[in-house]
């Protein structure tokens, strides 16, 4: 039996199932990261002293590069979906590949940042600042990794669906894109909060 409304819009909601599903999931993610941002606000406003990120060795230039990389990956992600709407599968593959590559660059830079901290014996237990820094960026990094795994599947074996159900496949890319843009959106707030303020 075919699951209804995987391609056509549901008459009640006006959207296909996966789109409603992903927005509900993203709503829960807003609460997850929101709780951590809320914790950050509480920790910072009640601390006797709170360092500026650059004072404790956070690299603003490196994080700025990471921000630009993630923004670029958001553009390539939406372009990959637009390519499918134009029925250009080769171009979809190119843009999705670029999205995965940008994700990889982000994670490599993050690994380099973390490595530099650990080399100087700076860990989450070092201070309240670093506890929340590693928690926020670590959880965000795991989300980037998860997104990369899904995007990798959709670039590779998952792309077979294009041949048999192209519209359903395009919907999957749209939904994966919504998740990826959310991950970018979280970093857009994380970057100034941790590195610039």
């Amino acid at each position: 039996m075919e699951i209804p409304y995987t391609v056509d819009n549901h008459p009640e909601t006006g959207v296909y199932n996966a789109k409603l599903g992903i927005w509900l999931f993203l709503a829960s993610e807003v609460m997850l990261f929101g709780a951590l941002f809320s914790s950050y606000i509480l920790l910072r406003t009640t601390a006797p002293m709170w360092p500026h990120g650059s004072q404790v060795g956070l690299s603003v230039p490196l994080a700025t590069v990471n921000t630009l990389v993630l923004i670029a990956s958001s553009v390539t992600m939406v372009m990959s979906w637009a390519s499918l709407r134009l029925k250009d599968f080769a171009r979809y593959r190119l843009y999705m590949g670029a999205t995965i590559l940008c994700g990889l660059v982000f994670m490599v830079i993050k690994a380099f940042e973390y490595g530099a901290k650990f080399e100087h014996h700076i860990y989450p237990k070092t201070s309240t600042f670093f506890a929340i820094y590693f928690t926020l960026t670590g959880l965000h990094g795991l989300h980037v990794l998860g997104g990369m795994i899904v995007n990798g599947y959709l670039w590779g074996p998952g792309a077979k669906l294009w041949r048999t159900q192209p519209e359903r496949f395009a919907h999957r890319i749209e939904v994966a894109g919504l998740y990826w843009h959310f991950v970018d959106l979280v970093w857009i707030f994380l970057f100034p909060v941790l590195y610039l303020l």
Partner: protein
Amino acid sequence: MSGTSAEEIRRETRGYVLVFVALMALTVITVGISYMHLPTLPAVALALLVAIVKGSLVACYFMHLLSEKKAIYAVLALTVVFFAVLMMMPVYGHHGSTAVR
């Protein structure tokens, strides 16, 4: 694929590139502002303002929130309410507590 013509999709992709340029510029601006070493309150307000503008561009254009359905807006409206509660809690939530400052 339903709905939009190839020309409309190409027009949308030009829009994505413009948003990308705007996001890059706003990133440079936010870093530039941080180097001005403003007092805490204006620094926080400006940083959050730029972040909100950037986030809105991503949400409206990349996530297509400008042309979404009511069901999605309803989900997000509820999320905004609960998110606002989360943000207010550390500010208003510890009155009368015995926490050491």
